[in-house]
């Protein structure tokens, strides 16, 4: 599995674990807005931010915390990939 695939797997496992919902069974796609489909709320967002910073060892900027991309699996994976790239180049 590619690194991006592993990251996606980790994120999906995390979301399914904390939300008590199977994204596959509920037919929730990677591009779906997790707030609109009732998976995440404000508390879940804070937990997600803390998880991402701990799991992937980076610090999110203020702008990233407010990014609409944090609402979908696809967007979260993209942010993690970007942060990893910045870390590699640093």
């Amino acid at each position, binding site marked *: 599995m590619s690194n991006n695939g592993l990251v996606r797997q980790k994120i999906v496992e995390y979301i399914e674990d904390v939300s008590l919902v199977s994204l596959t069974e509920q037919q929730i796609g990677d591009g779906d807005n997790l707030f609109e489909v009732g998976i*995440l*709320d404000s508390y879940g967002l804070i937990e997600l931010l803390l998880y991402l910073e701990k799991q992937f060892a980076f610090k999110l900027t203020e702008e990233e915390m407010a990014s609409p991309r944090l609402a979908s699996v696809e967007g979260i994976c993209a942010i993690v990939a970007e942060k990893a790239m910045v870390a590699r180049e640093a």
Partner: protein
Amino acid sequence: MTVTRCTRCILPETFPNITFDDRGVCSYCREVGDVQQLAVERQALQSQLDALFHEAKANPKSGAIYDVIVAYSGGKDSTYTLKLLRERYQLNCLAVTIDNGFLSESTFENCRTIADRLSVDHIFFKPAFDFMRRLYQLSVTRELHVKSAIKRASAICNSCINLVNVHMINVALQNGVSIVAGGYLGGQLPRGKAHIELNRNLMARMRESDLAKYERHLGAVARNYFALHANNADDSDNVICVVNPLVAFDYDEAQIVREITALGWKPPKDTGLNSTNCMLNDVGIAIHQRRHGFHPYEPELAQLVREGRMERSDALRKVETIPSGEVLQPILQRLSLKEEQFEG
């Protein structure tokens, strides 16, 4: 029916995602350390809070009258929190109590007594009862919250917690205060955190995600209670630190009650086994237990048992009596709800 429970804490087999090892210890207990390790973690959290509050005291925000807004329910935990902030840190507190229409008469008395004894300014805020009743009705009859919220509190309590959190942040923004504190235990701050910083972008994101849900169900009036005040929230200088001092201190329930009783706090007699301020709590518990097969206080009490702050037998006593029948009727009538609706 006998329920299998974790042999270390009290979580039952009906709790979401739980598994047990061959010693009967649950997966949630296995994620955390033993009593000694948890005490070390608590000490680290306490050092963080000491630094935060000393900074707030040493460098007060320009123009602000208060150092901290305290979400003061009048219950034992927030009373102890207020005492801690006043006596240990000598912070200038504004205590704010939300009257949800179901506070015990003793709660009003306790709020007034404690505010006076600790010399703090205090505000009661009472949202229109018609709105609160609709909010609670919806909490019971619809899936108002995300599924994972069942691990934090009952649906009724989750609605109240959200309203209180937004209101406290608004009061902080209006008063130019950067710290909001409460006697939060379960389900109000992520586990292992004593404080969280909410910058303006994060606050905006949180507002957007929850407000739409409440507006969809309750109409535009929901903005009055679940929207952050735009002008202040968009101010780039605003960072609100939400603090949960209780997770950082060694205490047990008996100690809390002893200390706040000395200040004049009296335990209400009409709020059930698990609340020390609100008469609605038992309805939330009864519905939650019937729908989800576990008591909504089990996660919070389990954590106290894990940390060695509560005897397992005392925690079990609190969750093994489920309120029903006549105890609930007066409250259900005020909410225009029937017990049959508990099944969902």
